[in-house]
């Protein structure tokens, strides 16, 4: 029996099956393309141009600034779950071992978003004017200089830690067991200065 004859005998069933197959093929292609775009987006969303600075104002207040840009070249909106920044001094020469200076935290309740194809610049600043905090800072600077360093309140090694976590668009991201599905559409961009190795 030739192929043509066979097709002629079963063309109705073949046509229905072909439509059925094409529908699922289009679903598969659509899903594979969405999946690819999500993966590409996840790898292209980055932090750029971190800038750190510190200065002493005329009234003796120490001003610490940090800014960073979040680049979102993807076509998806980023919904921010947490956005945090903190600055401190790691005091390896004495006590206390860590001198916390300032922190900022935004949670999902703040409903912060980064639009598609947008670069958003985040700027944080902290003013240290509390007398006891300034005394601790000056003590740290004086002790460090006594140990042979040459630092001032403006050039002290302030460490910065920034982290932005969020999820892409409206993709479901709250699976309890299948955590790999959350990972697929989640964004986590940490930045630390000085860089922590290992």
């Amino acid at each position, binding site marked *: *029996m*030739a*192929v043509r004859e*066979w097709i002629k005998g*079963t063309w109705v*069933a*073949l046509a*229905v*099956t*072909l439509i*059925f*197959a*094409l529908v*699922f*093929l289009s*679903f*598969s*292609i*659509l*899903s*594979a*393309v*969405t*999946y*690819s775009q*999500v*993966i*590409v987006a*996840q*790898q292209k969303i980055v932090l750029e141009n971190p800038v750190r600075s510190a200065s002493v104002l005329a009234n003796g207040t120490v001003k610490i600034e940090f800014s960073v840009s979040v680049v979102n070249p993807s076509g998806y909106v980023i919904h921010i779950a947490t956005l945090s920044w903190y600055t401190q001094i790691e005091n390896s020469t004495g006590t206390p071992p860590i001198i916390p200076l300032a922190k900022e935290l935004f949670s999902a309740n703040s409903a912060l978003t980064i639009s598609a194809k947008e670069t958003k610049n985040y700027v944080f600043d902290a003013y240290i004017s509390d007398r006891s905090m300034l005394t601790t800072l000056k003590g740290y600077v004086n002790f460090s200089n006594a140990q042979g360093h040459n630092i001032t309140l403006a050039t002290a090694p302030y460490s910065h830690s920034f982290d932005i976590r969020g999820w892409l668009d409206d*993709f*479901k*991201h709250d*699976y309890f067991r*299948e955590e*790999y*599905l959350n*990972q*697929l*559409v989640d964004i986590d961009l940490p930045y630390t200065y000085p860089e922590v190795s290992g």
Partner: protein
Amino acid sequence: MRTERADVYGIVASTILCSTPIAYICFEFALPNVSFPSFSSNLLVVLVLSILAGIPAGYLNKRADFAIISVLAYTALGYALAFTFYSVPFMFYHVQQVIPGLYYALFLRLTITLLFVFVVGGIMGMTAGQIIRDSIRRQETRLLWGEEPKP
């Protein structure tokens, strides 16, 4: 029993055409949040779609053994297609693999459950397809050889 050309055509056609729903179900089952339409990895929906996918295998194959071979063949081809769809970003977009565990999740962890549903559903659908085919043949025979219509 001799194998006719029509049997080969039936196996090939049903294997190719019925593999796409299997591929989509595999993909959707592993990645429901980026699939459209998503049925949230519901096994009942998977079973219903497996039955639907099995109907052409039963209808296009005269012999039950070839229909069963078709069910196994389209399940295997569907898995291979799902594997290809999963690999699209790494093949065409040149991105690094983000979650290597997904290959495990898609093709090992879920294989036993899904294979069972695909094969059981496929054989159920195949049986339904053969019943439909036989009833259509019986009706055609009755129309051809039945009583002459009264004037």
